């Protein structure tokens, strides 16, 4: 917008400039220049020479960071689009796969990011008021929270790697979903029933002569008719029925690995943003320690905080979309 266009310099315009604009009073900005040499900002070390005033410099930077945030929103939108379409087409895959995610860890990470967002916003206030040591403290807490987030993410990722929960052809889960703790807790009857079904299927495989397909719902000699509570979670997760990889038996849903593509790409891209944020905050911590920020010059802190809030914002959506599927 207009704020970015630099003012024509050279014309004398010191005092009259603000006539008729009572909402804006920064006489001190123009004290050092305006008449004659507009390029030398005298004793204003943080005012770049192509800006006329601190206000203009700040507004230009703010517009810049907002434009950057827009590109970030649209950048992530591609992944959210892939997620939306795949979930709409194959809801059973998401029901199946979410049992493998640790909701507690996701919730902890959400809280950690929210706290770091508070300290980032607080840091902006400290910079505006020129509170150097508080500013540094808040930046340190922000960095600490970001590192905590990455450590928790590391444990989650290594757990997934260990369990073979990887995208694409590397997807070889070592555990069946009904053996997973969160599934057992939520649907104890269904887990037990699934175990029996799987054992029976294995036995059938051993002696192919008695090749009777295990179709749930149909009467079988060894099984009583399953109740709704036993059956429904299995059907919903695509373990049995036409969506299963083995339509006659019990297995996982077809193309379940695509969920983990979504999961790793979305959380991975988000994690890269967190890492970049840590780098930016460390840089700003060094600058803050030199006492570079104050009431007239706190832009970098404000811009970094805006970026940080956007990273938080994306996680606010990722958390329910990946961890809290019902």
């Amino acid at each position, binding site marked *: 917008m207009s704020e970015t266009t630099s003012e024509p310099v050279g014309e004398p315009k010191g005092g009259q400039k603000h006539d008729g*604009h009572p909402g804006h009073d920064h006489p001190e900005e123009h004290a050092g220049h305006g008449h004659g040499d507009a390029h030398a900002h005298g004793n204003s070390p943080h005012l770049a020479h192509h800006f006329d005033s601190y206000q203009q410099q700040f507004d230009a930077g703010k517009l810049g960071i907002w434009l950057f945030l827009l590109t970030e929103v649209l950048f992530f939108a591609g992944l959210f689009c892939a997620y939306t379409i795949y979930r709409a087409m194959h809801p059973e895959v998401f029901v199946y796969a979410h049992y493998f995610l640790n909701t507690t860890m996701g919730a902890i990470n959400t809280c950690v990011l*929210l706290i770091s967002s508070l300290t980032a916003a607080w840091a902006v206030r400290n910079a505006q008021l020129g509170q150097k040591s508080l500013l540094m403290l808040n930046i340190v807490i922000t960095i600490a929270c970001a590192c905590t987030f990455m450590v928790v993410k590391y444990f989650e990722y290594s757990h997934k790697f260990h369990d073979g929960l990887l995208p694409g052809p590397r997807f070889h889960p070592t555990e069946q979903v009904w053996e997973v703790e969160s599934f057992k807790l939520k649907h104890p009857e269904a887990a037990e029933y699934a175990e029996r079904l799987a054992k029976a299927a294995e036995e059938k495989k051993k002696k192919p002569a008695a090749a009777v397909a295990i179709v749930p719902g149909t009467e079988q000699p060894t099984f009583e008719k399953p109740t709704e509570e036993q059956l429904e979670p299995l059907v919903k997760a695509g373990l049995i029925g036409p969506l299963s990889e083995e339509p006659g038996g019990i297995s996982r849903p077809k193309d379940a690995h695509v969920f983990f593509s979504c999961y790793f790409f979305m959380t991975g891209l988000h994690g890269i943003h967190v890492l970049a944020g840590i780098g930016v905050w460390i840089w700003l911590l060094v600058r803050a320690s030199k006492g570079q920020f104050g009431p007239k010059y706190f832009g970098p802190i404000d811009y970094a905080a805006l970026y940080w809030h956007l990273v938080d914002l994306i996680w*606010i959506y990722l958390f329910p979309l990946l961890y809290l599927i019902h």
Partner: protein
Amino acid sequence: MADEKSETEAKSEAQSAEPKAAAKPHAHENHSQENGHSDHPHDAGHAGHASVGEHVHDHGLAHTMPIPLLVGVLGALMALTLLTVSVTHYDLGSEGNLVIAMVIATVKAGLVVTFFMHLLWDKKFHLILFLTALLFVVLFLSMSSTDRSEYQPRIDEYSQTQAP
């Protein structure tokens, strides 16, 4: 607005020029400067400040967040996180749970954008920028979603040829 201004300026100039001939060159200079100023990019910015003036003018370059508000917003965000986790234990139908989760996430996002990101006190232009991005995200997602089953027959056909 610029035209209006220069018009009145010209009128006053014409009036003042009659009795005082000596003042004319000064008035003229003032006029051209004022004209240049009216086209000046800062005009829009000043208008923006004036509308939120009482928040901005006594705090320097931008609004400063009070600490109780910051902490209060964090409290609300934490409470909503707890709510969204606990609501998954209740079955509201698969769609119902998703809708509730998204509504809570959107309320949280709104809190972050409004308070932590200062959009409430910021220039309205930044809000428009942000809403434009969201509009395009919504267009992107909804148009892709309406189209999603379009190629399913071909996918099925392909997977049948791939099947052993």
